[in-house]
Structures are given as C-alpha cells and as structure tokens.
C-alpha cells in the first residue's frame, strides 16, 4: 500500500522536475525578446551596450544550465523571481489573480459535473424519445459554438441590449459586495458551463446506455427489478468509477479553459496572465504558471489512475481474467 502511493509521489516529483526543465529551456529558445516586457518600447532605442548591460542584470546572458540552477535554488525557497512586466514578485502577481480563476473554474467544475450527470441520466432514461432527441440536438448545437462567440453574444444581449448584467470585470469599480461579485460572475460562468456541459452529459448518456445493454440487466429484470431500480442500482452505479476518473482528468481541462472567457470578459484571472507571459517572454511568471498547471495536470492524471486501479472492480476483474 505504502509502496504504491510512495511510488506515485515519486513519479509526481520527477515529472514536475522534467516539466520545469522543459519549459525553462523551450521558452528561452523561442524567438522573441524578453527585454520588451521589462522595458517596453524603450528596448528599440537601446544601444548594444545598454542591451548587454540589461541582459546581464537580468541574468539572461549566462548559459542555460546556470540559469536553471539558479532558478531551482531560488524556487525551492519559494522565490520565483520577478515578473518582468509587472515588476513585482511573480508569486505575488499570481496569488493576486489566482482566486478569481479558482472561483470561476471551481464553481464551474462543480456545476458542470452535477448538471452533466443529471442531464445524462435524463437522456438515458428517455432514450430516443422526444425529450432525449430535443436535448441532444440542443446540446450538439451548443457544444459547437466557440466559447468566445457565446461570450460575445451574451454580452451583446444581456449587457448591451438589455443592460441587465455587467459586461466585464470581477466587480464594479469601488463596489465590493458579494451580490455585485455574483452578478459579474453570472455571464462568464454561463459560458464556462455551456462550453463543456454537453460534452460530458453526452458521454454519461452513452455510458449509461452502454451499461443498459449488458447481459446482467436482463438477469436483473428477470429477478423482478423495476426499470428504475435497474437503472440506478446497476447501470448508473457501474459507471460511476469511470465518471470519477473522468472528472479527475478534466480538472486541468476546465480550469485552463477559463482563459478565453477571462479574456473576453476582462475577468482578472490567471488565464490572461498565462497568455501574456508566453507572448512577451516574461520568463519567471511563465515558469511559475507552467509549474502550477503542470502540477494540476499530473495530479489529475494520477488521481484518475488510482481510481481506476483501485476502486473499479471491473479493472481488477480484467486483470484476473488474464490469469486464466
């Protein structure tokens, strides 16, 4: 048991290191000028000596390995350096904006997966009947629309035309009440949920339908179980493990997917931050963000794996079948 989890933790740590190294080297080798983020347009007017001086100051002239080493030492202590653009500690910048993304993504996550389960079950129960068909068609259309367009349309309708909801930001200027924040959250949240909901709902619907067609359903029916009981006690129950592992894998997906929404709604989360740091070669910020997202990705993967290997008796059954 301990060996199992210990092994996983080890893999986790190693992966993080590998990831950090990769991002480090790749970002530095990409075309583009990091000085731009620090100095802005003044860069163009600098003389070669001034450039050299600036680069030395920022430690950009040293060989890559040295730079990486320095990075490792500092990051172990929690110091991720200074964001070139914001001229503050990278950690500060991130921490400032992280909560917003967490709220948007976190609440969105919960909403998506609970609604998807409901919707999926409803569709499966009414398979091929009118309700299912309507939901499927609507779902298909909504899943096709690019997020940014949905955002635009929603802003157009609710903010511009109807003037019901705010069109940007996390809260109004100089106002900081809970209800105000909630208002600002509604539209972006809707986009986030709409964007992913149908994908998962459809998957659940199909998984349940698959379960229904298995032979043990026939036996359950022969025992005298009602259709409803069979559905919930057997079919839905059987597909829960794979649903859980799906959820685990989707965490990074949804958290990261808030980026577009954040941009359109000018929501101050870390999504826009990620884009900027990549674009403008704000290395320190980039590193921190990559490491964070990397950890989430790998963690999500691992949790999914653990669920699959330990909790789902069917996987164990398949293993056992190999022995025959």
């Amino acid at each position: 048991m301990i060996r199992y989890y210990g092994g996983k933790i080890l893999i986790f740590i190693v992966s993080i290191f590998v990831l950090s190294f990769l991002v480090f080297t790749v970002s530095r080798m990409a075309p583009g000028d990091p000085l731009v983020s620090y100095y802005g347009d003044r860069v163009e007017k600098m003389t070669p000596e001034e450039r050299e001086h600036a680069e030395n100051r920022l430690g950009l002239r040293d060989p890559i390995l040295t730079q990486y080493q320095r990075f490792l030492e500092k990051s172990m202590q929690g110091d991720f350096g200074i964001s070139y653009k914001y001229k503050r500690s990278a950690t500060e910048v991130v921490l400032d904006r992280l909560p917003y993304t967490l709220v948007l993504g976190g609440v969105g996550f919960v909403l998506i997966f609970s609604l998807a389960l409901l919707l999926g079950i409803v569709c499966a129960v009414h398979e091929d009947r009118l309700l299912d068909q309507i939901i499927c068609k609507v779902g298909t259309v909504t899943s096709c629309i690019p997020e940014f367009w949905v955002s635009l349309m929603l802003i157009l309708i609710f903010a511009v035309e109807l003037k019901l909801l705010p069109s940007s930001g996390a809260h109004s200027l100089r106002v900081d009440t809970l209800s105000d924040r909630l208002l600002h959250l509604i539209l972006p949240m809707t986009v986030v949920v709409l964007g992913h909901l149908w994908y998962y709902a459809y998957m659940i619907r199909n998984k349940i339908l698959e379960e229904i067609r298995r032979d043990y359903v026939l036996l359950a029916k022969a025992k005298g179980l009602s259709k409803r009981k069979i559905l919930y006690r057997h079919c839905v129950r059987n597909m829960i493990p794979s649903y859980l592992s799906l959820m685990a894998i989707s965490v990074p997906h949804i958290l990261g997917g808030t980026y577009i929404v954040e941009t359109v709604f000018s929501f101050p989360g870390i999504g826009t931050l990620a884009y900027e740091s990549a674009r403008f070669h704000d290395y320190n910020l980039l590193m921190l963000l990559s490491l964070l997202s990397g950890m989430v990705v790998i963690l999500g993967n691992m949790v999914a794996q653990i669920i699959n290997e330990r909790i789902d008796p069917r996987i164990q059954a398949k293993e056992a079948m190999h022995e025959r």
Partner: protein
Amino acid sequence: MNDRFQMVGILKKKTASEVKSHPWYKEHPVISEVLLGLLILGCLFAKGIMTKDPTYMDLLHYATPPGKEFLFGTDTMGRDIFSMIWYGGRVSLFIGVLSTVITTVLAILVGSISGLASERVDTLIMRFTEILLAIPGLLLIIFIQAILGQANVFSISFVIGITGWMSMAKVIRTEVKQLRDSEYILAARMMGGNFFYVLWHHLAPNFISSIMFMVVMHVRSAIVAESTLSFMGIGLPLEVISWGSMLSLSEKALLSGNWWIIVIPGLFLVGTLVCITQIGNYIRKRGNTTQSVL
C-alpha cells in the same frame, strides 16, 4: 388429389431474395450534408459569388448595416461582409482540413507504433500522450502560437495539427492492440505475410473506420481553434481573411451596437460546425446497433 402426396424430396428453390437495402438517404443527416455541400461549393466558387472585392476597404461605407448594396453589411474597415464570408470561408475550411491531415498522420504513426511495440514502450508512449491530453488543447495551441509569434495559414494549421493527435492516437493504439492478436492476423502471419503486408491489408482498413468519426470532429475543433486564435489576435493577421479574423474586430463592434459584424459570421461559423458535427455523429451511430432490453 393423391399426387400431392407424392414424395419429391428436396426441390431446388431460388435463394432467398436479397434483403431490401435502405435507400441511401434514409439515415443520413441529409440536411447537414446538403448545407455543408452548398457551403463548400460557395467557398470554392467564391470568386463567382462575391459581389465586391473582400479586401477592398471602402472607408466611406464602414460599419453599414445589411442592405441592398452590402448584403451582410460592412465591417469597421469598410469591407463587404458578404464577400468576406465566402472568401474567408476557404481559408477557414482549408485550415480545418490541413490540420486534420497533419493530426491524422501523426496519430496513425504514434498509435500504430505504440500498439505494436513491446509492453514497456507502449506504456511510455501512452503515459506521455495522456499527460499531453490533459492539457487543455486550446491553451496549448495558444501557448505555442504565442511563443512563435506571427502566423500564416500554414503555421496555424501546423500548430493546430500537432496538438490534436493525442486522443486519436489512443484510439488507434487500442484498435491495433486488439487487432494484433486477432485470429485473421494470426492466420495471415501463418500464411507467410510479413509485417507490412499485415499492416496495410488487415490493420489499416479496420481502424480507419473507428477514427473516421474523430477525423470529422477534428475538422470541427480545428475550425473553432483557428477562429478563437484569430479572435485573440494571435491567429491570422487582419489582412488574411478568415471567419476568425473577421470576428477579431467584433469586440469593438459590441459596444457600438454593430451586431451584424458579430452575428453573421458567427452564424455561418456555428452553422458549418453543426453540420460537421451531425455528420460526425451519424458516422459514430453506424457502429451501434444493439437493442435495449429495458
């Protein structure tokens, strides 16, 4: 009366008539196919349909609502939206297709190698793929694109192409693994067929059908990706017309109430995507035929 009771034994009867096959249009998503077909034709023959030169910026008539002269109105730079739709559609579709080709080739390569390789190599490749898969695709694209900077049609296709192969590769690898031990492959090997023979004649035809659905869906996500990128400003530059770049100006249009700049290209975009999705779903449904017992 008694000759009816004569023993005649087995009379050769005509073999039962072939089961009536369904007319081809019965289960196809006809509407989607027709619409999509019309759209593609329209884009291909854009030059014939366009009423105005889409690149010409008629600054006198900038931001005019739809009317007789400009069927869909003009954008903030005075370009006729109607013509831009057909002209830009080519670019969007092209990118969609090209990136899908790249993705498919990559997926087949990685998937086949992983499926046929030893246990260890397979696990390694799959773990790598899974981790890549967990990274939200769009983010990855944006990331890479942001690093690369400027973009043209080909580089965008390339970026979208190399970030989408993971899920397809997984499916191919599973199929190949199953097929590998299947008996007719065994039979082929016993007849003396070498590796490539088996790959070409037996493996490929079989997993092609299972990825058909994914290929079609990928065209869809590629088009979405391109439009999102262009909207963000890191996709195609304004001068290159695509549905995405048309929408990149739309943010400003919001506040000035020029709804047609956003709505019309968006509708075309969504419409195309829905058609593609319907076709994709139809392909997927063809695989499932069992009846429910409940």
